[in-house]
């Protein structure tokens, strides 16, 4: 008896130990909205989203809306993140509350991932989503880069109204089969089949469990009478079970191949992104000094700006980590903000610049200041504890005719800690 208990316990313990034991039985649910947790060097120096539009703020179940925009793969991509050799473009909310109807990158279907993202270039995307679960959802565009992780774009609330049970996604296969609802197609068949097999399994378990079990069988083995424990009838039942299982498999497989003679394997390849011409920087921005005033929550920069155009330009916007600091003195820049852009990403004080009118061919040092509590709220100030402590973003210029020019800005940044004052001003 002692031996039996010991062995039972040890067998169980041994097995669980071998497996490392414990752990969570449920799959780890990756929730969205890690946007503020993402490292600032990722948010300020990898993917810059701009010209974003959302066709609607509110849709009914089964209605669609489209998110359009561009993103720049930033030239000063941090060394700590893998280069965008392989990337996937998408939009997501918390779970599949919205479904994807269509998505394109530079005009190509974005069902699969793309190879060959190039730094310094712009990519145009378009994603159409359909309402499925009613609620108010924060939906982000996202570029996932192999080795660097998820890089999210601006989050925008979308209201889905109606009833989830009305949702429907039907389609027709190339062999002419009409699928009424993609959410449930053939699920009942799968469950019936599993129940059918489960009934056999349960019957086999009960066949043994109904007899005197643990202690009597163990003692019988100890006394050398294991011959009693598996009877001739058990052999017959076991053989029949093997036969039935093989029969189910052969017949079932045959029927399945007859019913679906044309099947295709899962898609495996990736698409090369068609390269578009490198955007030419008509206005060059060379950062000479940047500092972040910790108590003042203010980013102050001085840059040598060269206008190579034959017309004057002014600074209209500085954008980084989806935050848009707008120069409110420039109507073209203010007009460039579409009404639907998330307010929390438009800092109230906007952008302060001094004497930013650049004559054709002129090179001049310009002061740029972006002050707002949003630096703290968005947890962006930890760039001060990075190993490379750099800042990056896009600067938008406008000429008198309202034409826009986009330039990259990047360089080292230093903190200004309380009591030491600033060594920079207008």
């Amino acid at each position, binding site marked *: *008896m*002692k031996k039996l*208990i*010991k*062995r039972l316990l040890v*067998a169980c313990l*041994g*097995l669980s130990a*071998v*497996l490392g034991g*414990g752990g969570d*039985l449920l*799959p780890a649910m*990756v929730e969205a909205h890690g946007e503020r947790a993402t490292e600032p060097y990722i948010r300020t120096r990898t993917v810059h989203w701009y010209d974003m539009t959302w066709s609607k703020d509110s849709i009914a179940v089964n209605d669609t809306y489209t998110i359009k925009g561009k993103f720049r793969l930033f030239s000063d991509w941090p060394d700590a993140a893998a280069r965008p050799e*392989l990337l996937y473009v998408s939009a*997501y909310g918390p*779970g*599949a509350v919205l*479904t994807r109807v*269509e998505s394109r990158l530079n005009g190509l*279907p974005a*069902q699969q991932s793309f190879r060959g993202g190039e730094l310094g270039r712009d990519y145009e995307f378009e994603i159409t989503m359909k309402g499925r679960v009613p609620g108010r959802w924060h939906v982000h565009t996202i570029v*996932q880069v192999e080795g660097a992780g*998820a890089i999210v774009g601006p989050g925008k609330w979308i209201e889905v109204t109606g009833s989830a049970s009305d949702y429907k996604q039907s*389609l027709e296969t190339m*062999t002419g089969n009409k*699928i009424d609802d993609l959410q449930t197609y*053939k699920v009942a*068949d*799968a469950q019936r089949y*599993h129940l059918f*097999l*489960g009934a056999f*399994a*349960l019957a*086999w378990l009960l066949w043994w469990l109904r*007899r*005197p*079990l643990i*202690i*009597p069988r163990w003692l019988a*083995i100890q006394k050398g009478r*294991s011959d*009693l*424990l*598996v009877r001739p009838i*058990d*052999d017959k039942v076991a053989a029949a*079970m093997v036969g039935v*299982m093989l029969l*189910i*498999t052969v017949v*079932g497989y045959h029927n*399945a*191949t007859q*019913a679906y003679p*044309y*099947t295709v*394997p899962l*898609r495996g390849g990736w698409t090369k992104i068609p390269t578009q011409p490198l955007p030419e920087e008509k206005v060059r921005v060379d950062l000479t000094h940047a500092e972040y005033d910790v108590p003042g929550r203010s980013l102050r920069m001085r840059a040598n700006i060269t206008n190579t155009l034959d017309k004057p330009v002014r600074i209209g916007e500085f954008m980084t980590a989806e935050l848009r600091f707008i120069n409110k003195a420039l109507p073209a820049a203010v007009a460039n903000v579409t009404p639907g852009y998330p307010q929390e990403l438009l800092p109230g004080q906007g952008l302060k610049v001094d004497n930013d009118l650049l004559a054709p061919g002129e090179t001049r040092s310009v002061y740029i200041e972006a002050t707002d509590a949003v630096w703290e709220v968005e947890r962006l100030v930890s760039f001060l504890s990075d190993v490379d402590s750099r800042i990056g973003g896009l600067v938008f210029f406008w000429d008198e005719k309202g034409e826009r020019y986009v330039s990259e800005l990047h360089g080292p940044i230093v903190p200004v800690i309380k009591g030491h004052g600033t060594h920079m001003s207008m």
Partner: protein
Amino acid sequence: MTENDREVLRVAGLSGDTARWSRTFDYLIIVVAAFLVLAVTYINFLLLAGDWDFFTDFKDRQYWVVIYPIVQIMMAAAFQAVFWTLFRLPFGATASAFLFGLGVWLVRYHSWMGMAHFPLTLVVPGTFMVGAMILDGILTVSRAWLVTGLFGGTLFGITFYASNWIVFAPYFQPVENMGQLSSLADVIGYVFPRAGTPEYIRIIERGTLRTFSDSSTWVSVFFSCFICIFMYMLWWLIGAFACKAASVPTGDRFKLLFGMKPAEATK
């Protein structure tokens, strides 16, 4: 109670109250063992096969077909070894497959559909119940683990793919999506977005297998059979070894509880 049952009880020296007590003990053990078998099978699968069986559009004809049976035959073999060595009960594999199926469907409903809003079409699980019952059947008839490993292991690998194709064939119908040829499974994965799971994370037919073209599934199946045989043997031995170890002390009180004299019980 059959004649055979009475004979077993007689040989074991249990009658009347002790027999009834032992039956109560059986029920207790069944509950505890069921939970343990489920948890161990599930955790083992999560650790070693990860997300290959989570999503319909992860079930490719190369890795899924190879990895699923190789991982599941481990616990099937180990539990067979434990239950057979200690009690001559040939149901370790079936118990593992049946309980795993129960657990998997529970999680599909609770977490995948309930918490992440995934439709069931995206998360239909595979099953190894057919292979498990074949393993148990062969062990019963042959009473030999080497024979079970050789024939059972082979059939386990073959029947996994064939018996699951019954469920999954419709999900591989050709569909046109944005002008591209896709399988229905791909489209389901596309329509219902997964946060944090970029497309490139799927490992679909990498390497030179594609050169086998249409027969590549069967190449995978036979490779899987081959590995299953050795996996079975390895894990049978691990299970059997676990039965031999003896280091947990059990006192005389415990034995007395079952109406046995300590001296007799260890005889």
